[in-house]
């Protein structure tokens, strides 16, 4: 390594320096560069984690010390979690968690069941208008939710669907399905499709080859896509805030409209506790499947 790099740096630098001094200098330079990278990495980590850390610290802090602003854990209590989950103040976080889970699972399953076929065709088959279909799906994933809300509001009012689960699930398919197709498509492109050919030579039909060979192989990709679709549904706010009722509202709406015991006083500590409850399972999920999720995110290019 050094013998290869040596002459190159020598020509790039002052040139006539003795070899050993040059090597020492470049070692020092590499070490300095390492320290600089390390410092910048620490700044990035702090930028990402500090607000999150603050949410957790606050969620464990006694209500009376809400604005204490001590940077570490003080006045630690579980009370805020009890407040967050209690229904005494008109909040329904527990119900909202179940609602979000139910809506998320429905949206994910529908999007996957329908989208898996389209993404297979887009990744595997050769046909006309393929580029156009991909373009349409990509455009759909960038579609502004606000353009759907007005007609749906009127339609669901007319047919009495306001505040029902289906009124929340159907609009969310509009962004979960394109995301599913696009992400799965990019995963499917990278799979070892030769195995499918081999199965067909051994006498499977294309449908059989898909079911017996490709589906088991595709399971991790499908699972990652499912997580991304679920997260996008879990985080949805605009549509849910307009079309849900107290009984069907998801967690995002519940947290945004969280009320305290005093009318004009935000129950910050309880809200931070609620936020932690909503976020931590998601973060654990994301960290476990980190590598695949990053691959899926960058492939789909769609914000969750």
């Amino acid at each position, binding site marked *: 390594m050094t013998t290869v790099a040596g002459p190159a740096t020598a*020509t790039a630098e002052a040139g006539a320096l003795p070899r050993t001094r040059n090597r020492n200098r470049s070692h020092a330079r590499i070490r300095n560069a390492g320290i600089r990278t390390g410092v910048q990495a620490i700044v990035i980590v702090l930028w990402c984690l500090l607000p999150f850390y603050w949410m957790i610290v606050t969620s464990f802090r006694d209500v009376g010390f809400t604005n204490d602003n001590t940077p570490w854990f003080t006045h630690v209590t579980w009370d805020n979690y009890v407040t967050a989950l209690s229904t005494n103040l008109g909040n329904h976080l527990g119900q909202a968690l179940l609602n979000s889970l139910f809506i998320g699972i429905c949206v994910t399953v529908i999007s996957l069941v329908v989208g898996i076929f389209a993404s297979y065709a887009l990744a595997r088959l050769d046909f006309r208008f393929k580029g156009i279909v991909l373009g349409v799906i990509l455009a759909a994933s960038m579609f*502004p939710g606000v*353009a759907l809300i*007005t*007609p749906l509001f009127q339609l669901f009012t007319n047919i009495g669907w306001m505040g029902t689960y289906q009124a929340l699930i*159907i609009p969310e398919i509009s962004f979960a399905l394109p995301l599913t197709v696009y992400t799965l498509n990019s995963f499917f492109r*990278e799979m070892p499709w030769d195995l499918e050919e081999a199965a067909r030579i051994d006498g499977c039909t294309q449908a059989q080859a898909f079911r017996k060979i490709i589906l088991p192989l595709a399971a991790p990709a499908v699972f990652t896509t499912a997580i991304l679709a679920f997260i996008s549904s879990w985080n949805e*706010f*605009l549509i849910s805030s307009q079309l849900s009722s107290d009984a069907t509202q998801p967690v995002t709406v519940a947290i945004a409209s969280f009320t305290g015991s005093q009318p004009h006083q935000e129950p910050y500590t309880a809200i931070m506790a609620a936020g932690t409850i909503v976020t931590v399972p998601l*973060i654990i999920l994301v960290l476990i499947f980190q590598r695949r999720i990053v691959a899926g995110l960058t492939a789909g290019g769609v914000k969750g």
Partner: protein
Amino acid sequence: MSTSNVVAPSSTTTGTNGRPPLRAGAKRQRAQQSRWALYLILPTLVLLAVVIGYPVVSAIVMSFQKDAGLDPATGLFVQGGFAGFQNYAHWLFQQCMGPNGSTISCPPGNLGSGFWNAVFVTFFFTVTTVILETGLGLWFALIMNRAFRGRGFVRAAILIPWAIPTAVTAKLWFFIFSFAGVANAILSTHILWTSDEWASRLAAIIADTWKTTPFMALLILAGLQIIPEDVYEAAKVDGASTWQRFWRVTMPLLKPALMVAILFRVLDALRIYDLPQILTGGGGGTGHATTTLSILVVDQIRQGFNSAAALSTITFIIIFLIAFIFVRILGTNVVRTQETQQKGAK
């Protein structure tokens, strides 16, 4: 064209594309594949037509209808009916319906007068957040692309702001920016972050930048990773400085991926709703310092569907036009860029 389109219409286009005409067997296989593809894709397209196509068409139809309701001038109940471009004029030129169907300028306090402000706020947010997020995201990505101990930890940390739901992010920053909150404590200021006009805009921008920079960094990192190492080595041998390597090697090679990332972010920022709505109650300052187009549409829904439909159609057209400008004028090829990224990622 006329001879072969009876057998397999799909193969004629391949012929005209300049590729050699396919053999009969290949033709049959292609036709068969096309049929399969149709069956497999149809459910997705039908579902998208139901959940997106239908609402869009019905919004456009609604936007040309009059809102039924009490006429403010006569106090009589007015049925709807064809309105022409009146709903659009309401937003674009602040024209309201006067007595006997004439048009007058809207009374103060009407949502119509908030349109150009909302356009300004939306574009202001989009430009500032996308510039900040691209700059910071590029920095994050360049650091994460280097080999150092603890890189895995940085990559994990960066996912956390992304994983927090926007509604929770907004509440978290609402607390940070509260009057007795930690932002004022650190800065030793007494700023009303969520109700002062410019402070509330700044608060929304900071919160959005925190939340979305990681996503941008990941997209840019994916673009950086497909740049082969030997290009840098060659530049080094030729005596290029770090600065020159960045501007003359990294940036040109990163440009396609960067443009796609910026396009995604711009389209996403233009429809921003959750963050300013929750962080500043959709108002801030004088009541509409952070009112984006999406917030204005939602405010309008309960005051008249058809007017709201016109506004959402205008919003949709604005977003569509900007996507069009990106793809046509700046030549951002989303599909192809992502395909090369996937090939490179192997």
